[in-house]
């Protein structure tokens, strides 16, 4: 188990750790106290993943370019 704070964790890392936690718990060779800690960590990871998934939001913008070809702003893209 890593001690990375959840907030800084990418979805993929959280997912990978959740999988490890679940497998570890399922193997059943952890002490009871540890299994409760593991469960707590697993629940936190799951929540973190879920939040990341729920935060899915589509937002499409098109970059506007100046004369010299460098971006100078954004404009919404619609109808696509």
């Amino acid at each position, binding site marked *: 188990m890593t001690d990375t704070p959840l907030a800084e964790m990418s979805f993929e890392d959280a997912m990978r750790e959740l999988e490890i936690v679940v497998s570890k718990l399922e193997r059943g060779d952890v002490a009871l106290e540890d299994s409760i800690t593991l469960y707590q960590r697993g629940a936190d990871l799951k929540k973190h993943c*879920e939040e990341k998934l729920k935060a899915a939001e589509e937002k499409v913008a098109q970059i506007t370019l100046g004369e010299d070809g460098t971006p100078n702003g954004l404009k919404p893209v619609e109808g696509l």
Partner: protein
Amino acid sequence: MSDLIDEPIQGENAPEFSVSELSGAIKRMIEGEFAHVRIKGEVGRVSRPRSGHIYLDLKDDRAVIAGVIWKGVAARLASQPEEGLEVVATGRLTTFPGQSKYQIVIEDIKPAGVGALMALLEKRKAQLQAEGLFDASRKKKIPYLPEIIGVVTSPSGAVIRDILHRLRDRFPRKVLVWPVAVQGEKCASEVANAIRGFNAMTPGGALPRPDLLIVARGGGSLEDLWGFNEEIVARAAAESAIPLISAVGHETDTTLIDYVSDQRAPTPTAAAEVAVPVRMELLAWIDQQDARLTHALTSGVTRRRDRLRDLSRALPRPDSLTEASRQKLDHLDERLPKALTAGVREREVALGKTAGRLQLATVQQRIRSEHKTLVSFTGRLRLSYERKLSQLSDRLAALDRQRLAMGYEATLKRGYAVVHSDQGVVTNKAYAETARGLEIEFQDGRLKLGNGSQKKSASKSGTPDQGSLF
């Protein structure tokens, strides 16, 4: 007169041109005759001075024609001429009368067919590969779930729509579209600029930097896709710090950018699939993990409870732990007195055996035998003793005789006497005058001189003297 009679020389009546006239005539003729020509050949030496014009040679195995592409034309070209490329150039011929030279002013120049383009592409591929730009070790990992996706493509058309639709279906994300021309002469520079531009953005800025790039274009001819085969595009993609997915053309089209990108997608739609996972699947997966997690914990507890119950059932009663020992103790307790009795009896038997061997007769016989020996020794001892005694008696008698012969008693017989006092023998007169208890010894006895008390004490003292002698 002779002047009048001309003898004309062959050809002398032809009009004479000045150099300029002739050069002008040639110029007119060439520029008139070759005002619009198509010429196929290989590009020779190319020079690009700062003026922006391009000077190049077109050649085949026997001849060379110099050519020029004016700045305005050069900027419009779909593909830039490169040395070695087979091209078809369109233009007009012109001459420089001042230098007696001619050249073609190129208005358009294209690779001479697909074969030529392919040859050029192969050449570039070989070069970039040699530089290591295609190495697998250079490939960056595509993020599992990018937050912001930068898409470099035409802002209108099916491609961006396909990508956005597929993203929406799978996992809606923030998308920044960088509009570029996806074909034509501006395509390569704009695409390269877009890739560099996205990389130049700062994460979390007003224009947030994407964490994944997609460079996409729909299908088209080799010429249409040619911008994605340009070296500047390939180099920009190779240098991109942001992971980049290329999706140019159809599945069968492979452009140079596909070799340097971190991942090639066969179509724009496929690029969107590579870019993000399916949200619903992940939600389902999360639920599944949650269920597994809970199940694992509960089953862990249940398993322990069952085990505990089994173990406590298997745990024996405390009594039963001591039963065997207690029984053994009883058994031993019972055996102990028996063992003691048996032990005593055993010793009795052993004693009996030993006692049996111990016989009085033997001892008595021994005693008798020893006694006999003793008697015999006693007899011999007595004999020996008596013999010795008689020897000693004889000797004593002899010695006594000798003593008697030499002693003063014998002298007394011859008439001498000895004067004694209570202090001893008196040998002179002076002593006799002071001594008390004087006695005169004769051969037949002593005569006291003085009172009877003296005699008494003398006889008293005589007795112990006698005793001490023996």
